[in-house]
Every structure is written in C-alpha cells, then in structure tokens.
C-alpha cells in the first residue's frame, strides 16, 4: 500500500470536512441550514445505499427516520437530555437496535416485497404516532433548544454549530462505512447483489448480510431523523409518511451505490430543487419536483456516483 498522501481516504475526508466547515463561515445562514438538512437526509440515503449494495431497497426508511427523530425528541422533552451530539449518538444506537429486532422479519424477502414490507412497517408506525395524543398526535411537538457540552449557543451561531457537529459526525461515519464496504462482509454484500445462490453455495449467508445491512441502515436513518428533528426544532408523524420515504429512495437512486459523497450531493440537490420550486412555483411545485425526479432517473440512471467514478477513472487514465 504505497499510496500517496492525497490518495489516502482519511486524508481526503478530513480535508473535505475542514473545507466544508470553513465554507460554512462564508455562506449565508439559510444555506448552512439547508446543508445540515441535506446531511440528515443524506444519512438516511446512505443507509439505503448500504442496503442497495446487498441488492435490497427499502421504501420505508421513514420508519427509522421517525424512530430516530422521536427518540431524540422524547429524550429532549421527557428526560431533559439536550446535548445534540449525545442525542444523535443515542438515536443512532437505539434505532440500530430496533432495526436489528425487525431485520429478521424483513431479511427473508427480496426485491419489491422487501420494499413494500418496509413501507408497510413505516405506515404502521405512522398509524401509531398519530394516535398517541401524549406526544402531540398528528401535530407533533417542539424540541427544546440543543446544547453542546452543556453550553447553549446563542441563536445566531446555533445553526452553524449544529452544521459543524453534523459534518464531523457524518464524516467519520462515512469513513467507517467506506471501510465496511471494502471489508469482507461488505464485499459479500456486492456478491449477494450479483447472485445470491452462489454466495450461499460458497458458504456465506445472504440472510446475515441482509440483517447486518438493515441494522446499519436503521442506525443511519435514526441518526438522520434525530439530526433533522434537532435542526428544525420540531417533529411530527410526517417523518414516517410514505412520501418522506419516497424522497430517501430518490436520493439514493440519484446518487447510485458507488460513492458515499454522492449521496450528500444528491440530498442537497433534492433539497434545493424542492425549496426553490416551492418558493417560485408555490402552486405547481409538485409538478416541478415530479418532473425533476423522472428526468434525473431517465438521464442519470446509475446515479451521480457512477459519474464520479467515471470521472476519476478518466483522470487517472489521462495521467
């Protein structure tokens, strides 16, 4: 492994993270906020991508998104826990645990059945959440303002600090994921995607791969939900609605399963398109968003990630 420094993953990531943190100081507040939100959505997308590498797509990631968000919210309002980093981490662990519990139910299914069952799970959670009036029912509830190491930042800097926290936590998770993808179990997932039967004959368990990937995806989704809730300061059952889940699937398909940064780019793109179409075409923003989805699926079918990969491959060749 005689790679040069700039080819080293860790170096690249830390460089990118510091760059983004610096950029955050220069760009307007609303863009900082939009990027934070894109990171939250990107985390969920990253979970779906992890599943996609094993040949599965979940159409119900709203399920884990909601669990993560409500975990953070309830810890904040009921237990008085307001440290953003702690909330993100606890939501990650707890939702991962929930994922581990329901994964065996889902891991037996493939393709569209997997997608629909996960969707059904998210709808059941939605049904439960709108029924429980103690936590706001369909109205949801407001989260307390978050703190960092016991300090509550003034409102001008709150957005930026959360942005920095999100970038650092997500950055390290992305690095870990990259290592996981390139490890033996991570590569087995790719093999399962190609041909599940052969993998089983070779002595690995496709079922275990699916369970592991779903658990990781759940943890990531939970963290995304918590981040989204903390950033917006409000949470409602809409987190688990099927339209929310649809957006996550779109992000991961737009990104493709080859590249981790592409997911966040896709999330940002979706966020910007939605927000600007809502601003300039308040009557027909759904039309614009729908056309954007269809066109990007038609023209970039294998995702922005494949585009990245081609680009870097060409760069290397030309050298």
């Amino acid at each position, binding site marked *: 492994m005689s790679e040069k420094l700039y080819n080293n993953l860790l170096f690249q990531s830390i460089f990118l993270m510091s760059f983004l943190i610096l950029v955050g100081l220069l760009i307007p507040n609303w863009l900082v906020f939009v990027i934070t939100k894109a990171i939250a959505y990107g985390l969920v997308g990253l979970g779906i991508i992890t599943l996609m590498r094993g040949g599965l797509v979940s159409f119900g990631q709203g399920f884990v998104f909601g669990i993560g968000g409500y975990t953070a919210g309830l810890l904040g309002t009921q237990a008085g826990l307001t440290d953003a980093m702690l909330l993100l981490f606890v939501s990650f662990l707890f939702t991962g645990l929930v994922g581990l519990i329901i994964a065996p139910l889902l891991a037996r299914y493939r393709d569209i059945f997997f997608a629909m069952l996960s969707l059904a799970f998210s709808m059941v959670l939605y049904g439960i959440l709108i029924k429980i009036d103690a936590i706001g*029912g*369909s109205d949801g509830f407001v989260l307390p303002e978050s703190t960092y190491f016991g300090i509550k930042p003034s409102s001008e800097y709150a957005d930026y600090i959360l942005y920095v926290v999100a970038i650092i936590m997500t950055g390290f998770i992305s690095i870990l994921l990259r290592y996981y993808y390139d490890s033996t179990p991570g590569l087995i997932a790719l093999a399962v995607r190609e041909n599940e039967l052969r993998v089983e004959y070779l002595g690995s368990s496709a079922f275990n791969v699916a369970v592991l990937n779903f658990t990781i995806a759940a943890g990531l989704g939970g963290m995304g939900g918590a981040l989204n*809730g903390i950033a917006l300061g409000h949470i409602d059952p809409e987190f688990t609605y099927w339209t929310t889940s649809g957006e996550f699937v779109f992000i991961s398909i737009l990104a493709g399963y080859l590249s981790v940064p592409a997911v966040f780019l896709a999330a940002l793109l979706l966020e910007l398109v939605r927000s600007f179409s809502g601003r300039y075409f308040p009557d027909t923003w759904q039309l614009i968003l729908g056309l954007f989805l269809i066109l990007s699926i038609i023209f970039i079918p294998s995702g922005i990630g494949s585009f990245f990969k081609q680009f870097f491959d060409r760069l290397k060749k030309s050298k």
Partner: protein
Amino acid sequence: MNFFRQCLILISSILISLLTFVGISNADGHKGFKLGVVTFLSGPAAEPFGVPAWNGGKLFIKLLNEGKVPAPYNKKGFGGMKITAIPIDESGGATKQVQEFRNLVQRDKVDAVLGYVSSGDCMAIPSVADELKALTVLYDCGTPRVFEDASYKYVFRTAAHAAMDNIAIAKYLIEKGHDISSIAGINQNYAWGKDSWKDFSVSVKKLSPSSEIKNELFPKIFSGQYGTEISALMNSKAKVVHSSLWGGDLQSFILQAKPRGLFKRTQVVFSAGDHVMPGLGNKYPEGVILGARGQYGMMAPDTELNKWFYKSYMDEYGVFPAQPPYRMVQGLMGLKMAIEKAMEKNGGKKPNKDEIAAAFKGLEFDSPGGLVQMKLGDGHQAIQPHAIGTTAKDKDGNITVTDIVRYKASCVNPPNGIKAVDWINAGFPGADC
C-alpha cells in the same frame, strides 16, 4: 458519448442552481414591505381554506397598493410602503413548515410572515419565530393553546381561537329552545376536532347539566367516506349532532348524509360550516345551525367596511366571501394598523420588528367582521364578536342564513389570563353578554 452527455447535464444543473442563487441575492435591497404569506395551495385544505383566503389576500394587497381601500385603511400599502407578497404552500406537515419559515426569514429576508391555517403549524412556528426574531401573524388557525401554554414576543394572532365557536353554538341552542337532552359528535381525529368537541360538549353540559352524550366519533381526517359514521349517528338517536368537519370532509359528509335523512331527523350543528356554502350552493341542507368562526360571509355585520369588502370580492371572483378571505384580510388589516401606529411613533421611518411588535400589542382595529381586540395572551391574541345562524331557503329557493344571533366578543371569549377550557368548566365567570 454517454459520459459527456452526463457531464453536460450535471454542469448545466449546477449552473442553473447558481443562477438561481444570484437571482435571489439580487432580490435583496428592497424598499417596500416584503410579506411572506403561508397558506394551503395544494392538498385537501387548499380548496376550502388556502385558496379563497389567498384570493382575498391577493385582492386586498392589490387594492392597498393602489390605495383603493376605504378609511381607515386608505393609506397606500403599509404606511406608504408597497407590499410585495411571497406566497408559500402550507402543505407537508409542521416540520416542513418550520423549514419553509426559515427560508422565508433567512433567505428571502421578509419583513413579516402572515399565515397558517393548520393548528399543528401554529403550534410549531412560534418558537422558531421568536428564536429568529421574525414578526409573525397567525391569521386563521384555531387552537387556543398557542398563547395559553406559552408566550411569544414576535407572534400575534389576529383572529379569535376556536373556543368561541363552540361556546356560542351551545348558547344559541339553548336560547332558541332546541332540545339538547342528548348530543352526539363527529369530529376529525386531531387537535382541532378533539378540542372543538370538548369545548362544545362541556359547554352544553354546563348550560344544561341533564343532557347526555350519546356518541363521540373521531374519523380520520380526509377520509371522505362517512357511510358507517352516518349509520352510527342515526342509530344513537341523539337530538343534536355536532361537527367541526371542514373542507372536502364536510362537503362529503353533507352529500352522503343528506339523502339518508340525517338532517331531517336530527338537529345538526356545524361549528365552521359556512365556508363550503359558496361551493355547495343549494345542495346545502336546510335547518342546520352553523357558525363561521366570526361574523363573516352571510353573517357579516351591516357596516360600510363589510359592504365594501363583500362587493369587491364578489366582483372579482363571482362568489361571496366565506370565512377564509375575511380572516386573511383581518390579519393584513391588523398588521397594517400596527405598522402605521409604529410609524406614527418613530416619525414615519420604516419601523423595525420590535417597534411593530410593540405597536401590535393590545391593538384594536375595525375589520369587515367587526371590532378586533388583541386582548388575550397579554395583547397577542385577538377576540372578536361572533354570530350563529340557521340555514333556510329564501323565497327564490336559494339557501341562506336566518335567525342570526350576535354575541359580544367578551360574551363568548374568556378574559385575559384564564384558559378557555378552565373558563368553560367554571361556567363562564365574568362573561359580558
């Protein structure tokens, strides 16, 4: 080739988004008054509330900018400043609205936000509004909890909350001598429906302790199919059926219940039943007791201001205005008065948020629906007079509202500092009727 095509697509999409940013940043440096208007433009709440409200708002803003509104609103725009409105769709849930709100304040740098029909949104927005120090006028939503559970510096609601609707209906039933020995309710399963039913049933119990609750139904919002509920209501044989359904749900309920004889067999009351009248027309049943959440539409008072508004709206859109446009215009009038009052104080400069908020507190202004007083929630929550009526056919066979009883604001609204539900439970102490 494929690769380059993709390159081109990606680059052009980045370029487009960059150009949009440039467009946005140029849009700053604005001299007039930028107003974010948030209301339903898609989804099931658009047709009954969002769109008519915005139609009224749009028209009123246009007339204000042209200076064609009668006194005391005859100054152009807001204190001479031209109003530029940025409409935003309210659908998508409270969390999405928090984000849209942030976009309006941070990206578009609006001077104020006027909006919110949904109670869920009204509960979510105020804490962000205070955090961002953004002047916010809630124009429609009903939940009393906004200013009862918390207090905010920059948030105002220019319309009375929902307790008034149901208290007034209970009083009306008794004054008109209706049999209220047994009641039943059908209300949507969320905050608005549940609060409405609670206010109504407790009020009835207070005014007539012997009355009995037969049936409490809480169907899902936007379910559209009420066959089973109608059977259950009719089987319960309650003398009065109360409902706070609205929009498409209310229209569907009426259409499905009418041929089954519900309106003939029981006295039905709709606490917010007027806003579907322009659409349903003569399909609206007779003999229904209804409120409009204020003295609006067919129950509006006979004042010059109302005649002017009613006619302007009718001329522009060909239907009469029901509650939604009245309420949005009421919000715009309150904001205009607060701004102009602040300008009187600071010598005619464009006032800042704190000056407007200070002027808004405790403000009183005339609206087409009567005198609005910002009396509750320490001057942040309005009370207003109310009216209840009964539908009947006029001599041409058209559905209209008769038997109108008007209630003073202080008769059907709690005094400052007492929660609506406590006030009802205590038997309306201090009500000035």
